């Protein structure tokens, strides 16, 4: 009886998906960057309207409101966070400035790696000068104190930071994840100096609490980002929360996280909100995969500036990114794997050194593609699509934006066709072909690297404004033969938020040798160490379950053990049934599972059991399953579909222009099926069905592009 509403903020649009009484609707509003609350409310109101009610009415009865926000991303990229101070072990104050030497290329496109001569590192979030102070202390990698903490020094250094106006303290001491006593003492001292009763009391962030894992650079960045995003995130979320409360919404506001789940505001860490949109998309794909019984799914989202992809792989329950980077910062967060490259409708085509490049530079929405008529003169992928006939200039985004095909052709002619000595048609075709090639080939590489499976075995879901018009194109390059076009493709992130479970993730980094190199026996003592760590994670988990008001019987606990061969860098996450490691027997089972996954990923000959085995990290996921959306079903339509019209499209260079039937998606009923070449137009996208592919609409109004032969 009560509604569920999911909202996802995107760069250009904010999407909302609402579900009520078996009815599934979606709506969009333009993202209002100056205050995300406005677009949140606008999109939510439009979705409510489509459900036939006021937002206030919906809110009062709503079961859940789930929000995927970019408030943190914006804060990070625009650097609008507070001034923070960093206290760290003496001798390592330059850790952030050094950036592992590679920070000049982190988060940047591949080409940047080839240009070492122009390397420039990003400015650290906490400046080295004045805002970073050192503490004469040191704990060694066994957890033993090498240099004791000097409490007077701590007080003095804290004062220095206060004097330059910091609004929070980040404390990162070496090996604190093994022995936290010094970090805790620093916080105690700060609280002694600045007791709660007084104004201006500033938060203290301890690295071992935020990210108890090895790696001081990443742990620093993880802690700093969490701290940095806190103020803006809280302000924004609480602001929305208050407005919803005023409307009568009594449930918690749930937030979508990049760790692959949702949680209420009071159980959410700011850093987990980064990248929530694409991850929500992955979970949307996962939900649909379950509905259709698909094992391996690729989610692809081609928007204006970027092409994002994620994987759902049956054999591995949750696929994490192996070395996550947020913006330019390397972190320790179990981010659900997804990738982004600079390829989208707004990607600019240009010639350099006589070579055609398409992206990663983007025209964004201002000035946007040349055909937008907003002053852009460089040709983009969208311009190429217009020239080639894929996009109807009068029906772009349902006619909301009128495009000028002449401007598109002009841009293509002057910037690409003429320099390359080809016709406008040829140039446009090549622009499209090249971007499809790059996206498809990236997809292929990512799938291969991360799943160990052949991309042939994957079904792709194509979402995003430019997804359906390019999907068959890039699928060819990725070896994918089956593509689903969800009816709510334009609001897929929002749909995804409604497909995510309540998830809390607890991690502890701990290097434990479970088998020495050359041995065949496992170390039983290792099991005891691991069980102690697991127990600590369970304590935190139980506390949070109680806070969320969840029934402990209704949640599931999933343990993941991150393992590697002795001294190898490659780690794999291995699920463990149960919450206890029963001595050597369980260790052996874990190791075997590790080796099997390893062989699947890297090939039979790559395993090296004689290297021994290590655990690096223990992870506990607590999952409160949410009700999965049922896709509405519709009756089949008996009549054969008839096209709305025709237009000339240049599908293949050697065939020239072809009169192509154009169907309107909303005029098609379940059961409709056509062979390419055809176009299927919806309000917010165009499905391009090339020769050799077919299109059909199933009972859920899911469109399917399938390769014939």
């Amino acid at each position: 009886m009560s509604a569920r509403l999911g909202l996802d903020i995107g760069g250009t649009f904010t999407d909302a998906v609402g579900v009520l009484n078996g009815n599934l609707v979606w709506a969009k509003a333009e993202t209002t960057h100056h205050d995300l609350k406005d677009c949140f409310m606008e999109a939510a109101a439009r979705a409510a309207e489509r459900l036939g009610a006021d937002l206030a009415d919906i809110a009062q009865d709503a079961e859940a409101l789930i929000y995927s926000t970019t408030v943190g991303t914006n804060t990070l990229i625009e650097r609008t966070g507070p001034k923070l101070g960093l206290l760290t072990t003496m001798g390592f104050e330059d850790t952030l400035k050094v950036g592992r030497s590679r920070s000049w290329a982190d988060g940047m496109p591949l080409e940047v790696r080839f240009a070492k001569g122009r390397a420039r590192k990003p400015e650290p979030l906490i400046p080295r000068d004045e805002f970073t102070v050192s503490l004469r202390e040191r704990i060694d990698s066994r957890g033993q104190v090498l240099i004791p903490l000097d409490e007077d020094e701590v007080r003095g250094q804290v004062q220095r930071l206060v004097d330059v106006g910091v609004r929070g303290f980040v404390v990162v001491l070496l090996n604190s994840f093994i022995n936290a006593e010094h970090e805790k003492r620093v916080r105690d001292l700060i609280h002694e100096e600045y007791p709660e009763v007084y104004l201006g009391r500033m938060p203290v962030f301890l690295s071992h609490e935020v990210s108890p894992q090895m790696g001081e650079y990443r742990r620093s960045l993880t802690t700093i980002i969490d701290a940095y995003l806190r103020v803006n995130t809280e302000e924004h979320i609480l602001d929305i929360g208050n407005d919803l409360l005023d409307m009568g919404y009594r449930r918690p506001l749930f937030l979508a996280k990049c760790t692959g789940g949702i949680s209420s505001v009071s159980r959410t860490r700011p850093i987990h909100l980064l990248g929530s949109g694409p991850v929500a998309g992955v979970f949307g794909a996962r939900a649909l995969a379950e509905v259709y019984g698909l094992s391996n799914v690729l989610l692809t989202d081609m928007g204006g500036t970027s092409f994002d992809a994620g994987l759902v792989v049956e054999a591995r329950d949750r696929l994490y990114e192996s070395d996550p980077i947020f913006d330019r910062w390397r972190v320790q967060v179990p981010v659900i794997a997804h990738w982004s490259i600079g390829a989208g409708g707004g990607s600019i085509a240009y010639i350099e050194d006589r070579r055609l490049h398409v992206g990663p530079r983007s025209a964004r929405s201002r000035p946007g593609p040349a055909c937008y008529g907003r002053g852009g003169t460089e040709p983009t992928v969208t311009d190429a699509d217009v020239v080639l006939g894929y996009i109807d200039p009068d029906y772009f985004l349902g006619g909301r934006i009128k495009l000028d095909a002449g401007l598109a052709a002009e841009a293509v002619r002057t910037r690409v066709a003429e320099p390359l000595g080809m016709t406008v048609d040829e140039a446009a075709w090549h622009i499209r072909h090249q971007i499809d090639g790059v996206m498809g080939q990236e997809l292929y590489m990512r799938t291969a690297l991360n799943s160990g499976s052949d991309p042939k075995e994957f079904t792709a879901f194509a979402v995003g404004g430019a997804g359906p018009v390019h999907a068959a194109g890039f699928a060819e390059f990725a070896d994918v033969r089956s593509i689903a076009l969800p009816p709510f493709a334009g609001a897929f992130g929002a749909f995804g938020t409604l497909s995510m479970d309540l998830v809390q993730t607890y991690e502890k980094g701990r290097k434990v040798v479970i088998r020495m190199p050359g041995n065949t026996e496992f170390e039983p003592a290792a099991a005891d160490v691991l069980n102690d760590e697991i127990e600590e994670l369970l304590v935190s988990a139980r506390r949070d379950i109680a806070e969320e008001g969840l029934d402990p019987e209704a949640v599931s606990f999933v343990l993941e053990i991150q393992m590697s061969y002795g001294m190898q860098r490659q780690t794999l996450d291995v699920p463990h049934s149960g919450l206890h490691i029963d001595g050597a027997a369980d260790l052996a089972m874990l190791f075997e599972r590790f080796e099997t996954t390893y062989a699947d990923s890297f090939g039979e000959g790559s395993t090296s059991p004689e290297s021994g085995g290590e655990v690096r990290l223990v992870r506990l996921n607590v999952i409160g399953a949410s009700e999965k959306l049922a896709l509405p079903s519709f009756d089949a339509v008996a009549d054969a579909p008839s096209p709305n019209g025709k237009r000339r499209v240049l599908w293949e260079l050697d065939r020239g222009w072809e009169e192509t039937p154009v169907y309107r998606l909303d005029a098609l009923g379940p059961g409709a099926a056509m062979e390419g070449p055809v176009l299927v137009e919806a309000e917010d996208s165009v499905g391009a069905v090339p020769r050799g592919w077919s299109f059909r609409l199933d009972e859920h109004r899911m469109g399917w592009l399938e390769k014939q032969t």
Partner: protein
Amino acid sequence: MTSLRDQIKLHEGLVYDRHAYGKGPGWDPELIVEKAAKPSPIEAAGYDLLSDVELEIFYHKMLTIVEEAREVWQNLSISDIILAGDMSTAIFTPSGDLAVASTGIHFHALLNYAQSKFILKYYRDDPTVGLNEGDIFFFNNPLAGSTHAPDMFTAMPVFHEGELVAWAEVGGHQGDCGSVSPGGFNPYATSRFEEGFHMAGVKIGEKFRIRKDMLDYLCGSVRNPFVFAVELRSRVATCLRMRDRILREVERRGPAAVSGGLRRLIDRSSELASERLEQINDGIYRSILFNDTIGAEKGLVRIPVTVIKEGGEMTILVQGVSPPNGKGPVHATWHLVRASQAVYLFAYFFRGLMPNVGLFEPLTFLIEGPSVANSPEDVAHTEGTIISAAVVQCFHIIGSKMLFDSPFRENVSAPFSRNMVALVFYGSNLFGYRATGLTSTGNGAGQGARFDGDGEHSTGFYWASMTDAGEVEEFDARYPFTIIARGLLGTDYHGFGMYRGGSALIEVSMAYPNPVVMTSWGTSDVISHNPGLFGGYWGPPNPRLTITKNDALKLMAEGTLPELTHHSLAAEQRLDGEYAFESSSVNPKEFEVGDVFLCDTGSGGGYGDVLERDPESVMTDLREGMISADVVGRVYKVAWDEETLAVDYAATEALRSEERRARIARGKRFDDFIGGWLAQKPKEHLLTYYGDWPDPRVPGYDKPFWGEHD
């Protein structure tokens, strides 16, 4: 009209366009000096199948294959050096030419062709060897085309229905190769027979599996058989992966299109390289560097480089080089010098062009031999990269001078730091593993200053495009030592200039919690290889420092350990103990718990006149501890308020004007200067390995400028 090339006068009795040694069992120098080979029939057949634009997509695909392979290999590896990035994955044409390389060490990829070409010419049709699907080849012999024995390369031919369509190759620093010295670097080696096993294109596997007898032989020849076996398997797994991907592409496009496409990539690069060269001013350009060691002994060695640019071609002439000495391992080969130039060419001069052997097509290399740059057969080679890197540094300076007045000015800079000290430790780590290794602090060299700004700090490893310096907590858990300070800890320890050089990453480590054996190797103890540009001063030399019998552990326990920086240790000696400032190349020694070590891989040279550095930037340098107050006044001639660090602009202008006047007063006109200058000479004992002074090949050379031969 005489061309500029005609001005080159090569010395009789020496070789330039080829090696200073001939064919041998497993090597053919004629094959090695070849640039790109003639395309094989399948490459010719497929050459025109891809349009220019289709070629871009094809190139992207090949790049994803080598980048995927690079990631896979780095993840499978347990060798620290591979983890740090000293490796390459590459795809070669069926004729053996490099078409696509990953962002590892480009010049490795530029050497691996030698193996494939030799196999194609001599082994393919030999009934005792042959070339079949599933074969795995291995090589590390410097005479046959490798860098030096510790760099090892694996090659796998890729067949499609019986036809050779490509080669997949991976290579990288492996370390121990069974030589006299653990880890492969032996400054005392005098011949290649002390440098471990040398294999030249040996088939170590068939039907996609390494032969057990080969594996046993190799593992039995080295000190770290366990690591070696894991590494070798990783390489093979990586080759297999690349092969799978290449074959998938063959399925899509057809074998001829793939092979032809690879060839087209090479030709494309070569066309674009020529075009770029056309846009640069014709002329003759020169630069010169000197080395201070031949291995275990000190001695001056000369490496001059002349570049003649004419139209779409460039000649790189290394002439007037010190002769081979046969007393140490600082000997490069002809091919090592050529391939090393990729370090500069790919990332700077030809930046933006696809990096493959095509970029070398318009280049002619004339490398004098026999010399330390083009050495004869039986010398020791392990540290030949010192010489080839010196040529690269000269080329970088020359290239910057060429590119300033060109559309490619943004590549103008002082060279990336080439100075080295690598400390290699052996002992028991925290978890009870016997561990050998060096930290990735070596991936923290400083960048030379750029035409438009300061050099970036700690940017990576000299030889690779992008590398990682890792994290201290990982090293502490892995290695038998503990890092007690690590950062940009140097003061006055970079090249000064209008723009300053980037600082090196400096490491202070301690033998802790167990005793340890440590050996080190390096370069630039009294001379540096980090020149500045256009008046910028050089990045300084970096010998090594060990502090034994010190009070560090005691001070730590008492909580009174002083700040550990380059200055506090090397200059102020703030720890009590025995300070050993030494050459960076020292044989293994045992160290006790608590002994302290200081090392770094050098800071970049500066750019431009110090008197033009923005005084605000000088204050920033001071505030950051990059320079001392002394340098502010003495070198940069800036006046400031010591309390507020505010610049006194008027006084600064006065100081700087005064210095300019002083320069004019003390500077001599050329004719007044040159006689007195040329009359000087280094002390005899420094010239033992130099050759004739000042031109090793021209006795009695007396001209004011070097390189003027009649």
